[in-house]
């Protein structure tokens, strides 16, 4: 009798283990599925990155108007331009990515499928970050040519990646809300830009320090970098924990 019990319990525990193992796999594979879906859509439609990049180029041209072709002033302001361009193009990408989910009713389909809400969040953050980074890395050579500043330095690129992660982490959370309101895409910049500015300002400061003729040492920039990383972690955590309240129906 007792032996039978242990057998049963052993079977049960084995079953539980198998279940959790399966859940783990399915969690990451569902994140991956969301990312893959977005990448495939983008490969077919080429809506997002193209629009972001063309907008970014337009923004650079507009900025040059403000400087009246003053080259030294342009060089001074180049880092600021880069980050402002990324922010504005980023709102375009975020809006496009989440509004198309609504228009095509694909968000409804995702919500019906047995996928954790936080997995949807992570998947979206990863895919939009990828799109924004592709846009940024296409933009950087143009900035190098136009402003003659060393944006190719690896630490600069690392800061771009870190800043973008936090921006998109907040962006996916806020955009998922704003597209469900009656103001839709109009609301996003008003909500998102102030929310992410502290991190972006720190990132822009680091970028400026790193592209100076004599690049800053690690000691000078470590606090600002820590600020950006802290923002990334906080925002990802906040989004991860609260996303199920945002797209609940």
């Amino acid at each position, binding site marked *: 009798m007792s032996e039978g019990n242990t057998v049963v319990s052993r079977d049960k525990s084995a079953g539980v283990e198998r279940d959790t193992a399966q859940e783990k796999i399915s969690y990451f594979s569902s994140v991956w599925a969301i990312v893959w879906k977005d990448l495939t859509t983008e490969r077919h439609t080429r809506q997002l990155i193209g629009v972001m990049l063309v907008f970014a180029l337009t923004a650079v041209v507009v900025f040059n108007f403000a400087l009246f072709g003053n080259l030294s002033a342009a060089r001074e302001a180049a880092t600021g331009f880069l980050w402002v361009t990324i922010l504005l193009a980023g709102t375009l990408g975020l809006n496009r990515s989440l509004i198309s989910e609504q228009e095509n009713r694909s968000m409804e389909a995702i919500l019906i499928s047995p996928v954790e809400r936080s997995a949807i969040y992570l998947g979206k953050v990863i895919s939009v970050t990828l799109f924004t980074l592709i846009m940024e890395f296409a933009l950087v050579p143009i900035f190098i040519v136009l402003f003659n500043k060393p944006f190719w330095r690896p630490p600069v690129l690392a800061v771009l990646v870190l800043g973008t992660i936090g921006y998109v982490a*907040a962006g996916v*959370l*806020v955009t998922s*809300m*704003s597209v*469900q*309101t*009656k*103001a839709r895409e109009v*609301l996003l910049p*008003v*909500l998102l*830009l*102030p*929310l992410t*500015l*502290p*991190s972006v*300002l*720190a990132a822009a*400061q680091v970028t400026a320090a790193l592209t100076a003729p004599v690049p800053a040492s690690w*000691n*000078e920039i470590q*606090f*600002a970098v*820590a*600020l950006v990383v*802290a*923002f990334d972690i*906080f*925002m990802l955590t*906040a*989004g991860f924990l*609260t996303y199920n*309240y*945002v797209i*609940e129906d």
Partner: protein
Amino acid sequence: MTARLERMNLDRIVPILNILAVTMIIISLLVNFFYAPTETTMGNVQRIFYFHVGAAWVAAVGFFVALISGIAYLRKPANIWDTIAVASVEIGLVFTSMTIVSGSVWGRPAWNTWWIWSPRLTSITVLWLVYVAYFMLRGAVEDEDKRGRFAAVYVVAAFVTVIITFFSIRLLRDIHPVLFGEASEAAQGLQKFDGLASTKMVISLNISVLTFTVLFLAWLANRLRLQRLVDKVTDLKSQFMARYQG
């Protein structure tokens, strides 16, 4: 907790808090102008400082209360939490504006300019914008339940900005003085400030902060009572309509 908050008898609490707040403001003004000594380098201008710190303190408390009630709302969606969050953000926003204005008045004699884009001043402006946007978000959602959820999620995300503001002064080189704790080594140099040189000043500051805290509670209670009245009127209106239309 939620049920007790909903039942709370505000009609009795509000007058008591109002009287207490007014009395303490008078005391704190007297302390500010007659008890606190005149600072050596800044002179009488330094007296703004008690008001400035008090207002900044209430703003921080308001945003923190909003965060807590936002989290409470997400755990258990009761209207009272949403009301407390709105009230706290409203109060926090008013006191943030006061902090900015009083800081600017102080900045004129201290830095010889009304405004300077230093990290701290930039981040407080950003903070102000973040919480103004909170009302934009609320205004754009019609469904009450959705509005409560979105507002709560937003308030949680917005608090990250509050934290960054608090640390930015310790992390980046700034012209604004650090009052509590030490600035990091890289940030020192520009921030010489001996506003709290004497014990009398410390006492005055503490009285001022306490007064502003009571003022916050009084405002909050008044705002909650107001919301309760608004709800009552809406309720009566719909009862009236139901009775005479149907």
